[in-house]
């Protein structure tokens, strides 16, 4: 088999010019205070990552390996205990209009309707010169919730709530989309539809996307690059470049290469592949 999967030595790549990468993570460590105990829990340990503008990056890894933590650090929502995050070459010190997050637990305001929840981000970012409600309505429709504008979150199914969260993030038109298991509570079919929809939006607007998922197929299908994480301590164990042609279709999933990626990632996740991120592996 030809060497088409390149496992990038992240450190090596870091020596490239910082300006070229849209998001750059340097030696990032995220730690949390342990509840009711002294000491800290290392959620992410010295992670390095370089994401070029316009790429779609997926993150896979076992539960609790620090995927959300990595994402939140890039969002500027948790302060790193070490290292730093650069966006457009500028160190991140907090949230910014260039990034929007779709949260794993939706985080919708329960007292706001669907429409007002989508408006929420626009309001906070002080959008003006445009009818915010009309804009919010467009995005509600985009995620397929037309007719539910005036529902409150508790009246929606989990999957519908998740789509509100996606609409809220898309509505503010960020350069970088940070999605934390955005399709986690969707059924398989909606999941595929939303995936294609997301790819379309991404291709249209040349956004950079960072997408956490538990679905291996989904991770391959969407990605230019896959970040595989491991546990204890949470760390990046591999970065895989996906060389599947775009646009991708259902048939892509049946291709030999796709299956090869799948096999490899599964092996990674099961810890069968011994490696560190500085090691280059080909097969």
């Amino acid at each position: 088999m030809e060497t088409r999967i390149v496992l990038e030595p992240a450190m090596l790549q870091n020596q490239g010019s910082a300006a070229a990468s849209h998001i750059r993570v340097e030696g990032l460590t995220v730690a949390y205070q342990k509840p009711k105990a002294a000491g800290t829990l290392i959620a992410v340990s010295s992670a390095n990552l370089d994401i070029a503008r316009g790429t779609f990056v997926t993150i896979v890894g076992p539960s609790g390996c620090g995927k959300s933590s990595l994402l939140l650090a890039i969002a500027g929502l948790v302060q790193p205990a070490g290292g730093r995050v650069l966006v457009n070459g500028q160190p991140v010190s907090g949230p910014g209009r260039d990034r929007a997050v779709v949260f794993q637990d939706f985080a919708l305001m329960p007292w706001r309707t669907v429409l007002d929840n989508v408006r929420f981000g626009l309001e906070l970012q002080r959008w003006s010169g445009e009818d915010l409600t009309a804009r919010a309505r467009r995005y509600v429709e985009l995620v397929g919730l037309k007719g539910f504008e005036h529902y409150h979150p508790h009246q929606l199914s989990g999957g519908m709530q998740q789509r509100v969260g996606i609409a809220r993030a898309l509505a503010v038109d960020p350069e970088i989309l940070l999605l934390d298991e955005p399709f986690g509570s969707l059924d398989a079919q909606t999941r595929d539809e939303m995936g294609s929809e997301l790819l379309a939006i991404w291709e249209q607007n040349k956004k950079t996307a960072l997408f956490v998922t538990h679905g291996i197929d989904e991770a391959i299908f969407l990605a230019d690059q896959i970040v595989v994480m491991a546990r204890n301590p949470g760390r990046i164990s591999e970065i895989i470049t996906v060389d599947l042609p775009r646009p991708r279709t259902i048939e892509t999933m049946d291709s030999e290469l796709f299956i090869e990626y799948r096999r490899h990632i599964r092996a990674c996740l099961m810890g069968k592949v011994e490696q560190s991120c500085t090691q280059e592996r080909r097969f």
Partner: protein
Amino acid sequence: MLLGIVSFAAILLVWESVVRLGWANPFFISQPSAIADSLSRAARSGELWNNLEVSLREFAIGYGASVVVGILAGALAGRFRIVEYVVDPFLWFLYSAPLIAFYPIFVLWFGLGVPTVIAITFLLSVTQIAANTLRGIQSVNPGLLRAARSFGASERDLLWKVVLPASVPMVIAGLRLGIGRALMGVVVGELFGATAGLGFSIAYYGALLKTTDMIASVVVIVVLGVLCTQALSAVEARFDSWRTGPG
């Protein structure tokens, strides 16, 4: 609602007939018809309205002040940890202590009468409102704060668009419970030392052993309590609609 009326009517009927049949002494438990008489007499003479006005004024001032102070104190304690830690021991002490025991001290400070009643009313309800506000603010889901921050929310935005709306149900529950305690403060304060008011008239007729007039005043207080609580429950239901799911 209908059942409520039926059930009250049944109670009144049993009460009236038990006395009429001579099974119970009307000196002790009076009877509904006599109470109705007493009420209409008090209404015509203006005594009822006078007492009601005095009590309601004390209630409005004491409760009104406790709403302002309670929400403010609770919000400050919820916002600043240090304030919470400072206020916490006093709040819990006042919350669970039988505050009316401080009554004689208030009499020393404010003299017998209206100011003391207002002080007791205030003190009884303010702790409830402050405690609920604090709890409401503390129990705001941190995930919502994080989501707002991700869109660049300022501290002000966080307060106005997340913290306050999220704690509204809890605050209103505090207001409702506070009403009960404030009413208690008014009545008990007047029971001990006043020259007018519903509590005063209960104590006054009690001393004269006029059971009927005494129970008539109690009935007015019951009605007042039910009305206030119902009103706040209605407000609560309105604000709570987003929180109580269908299940």
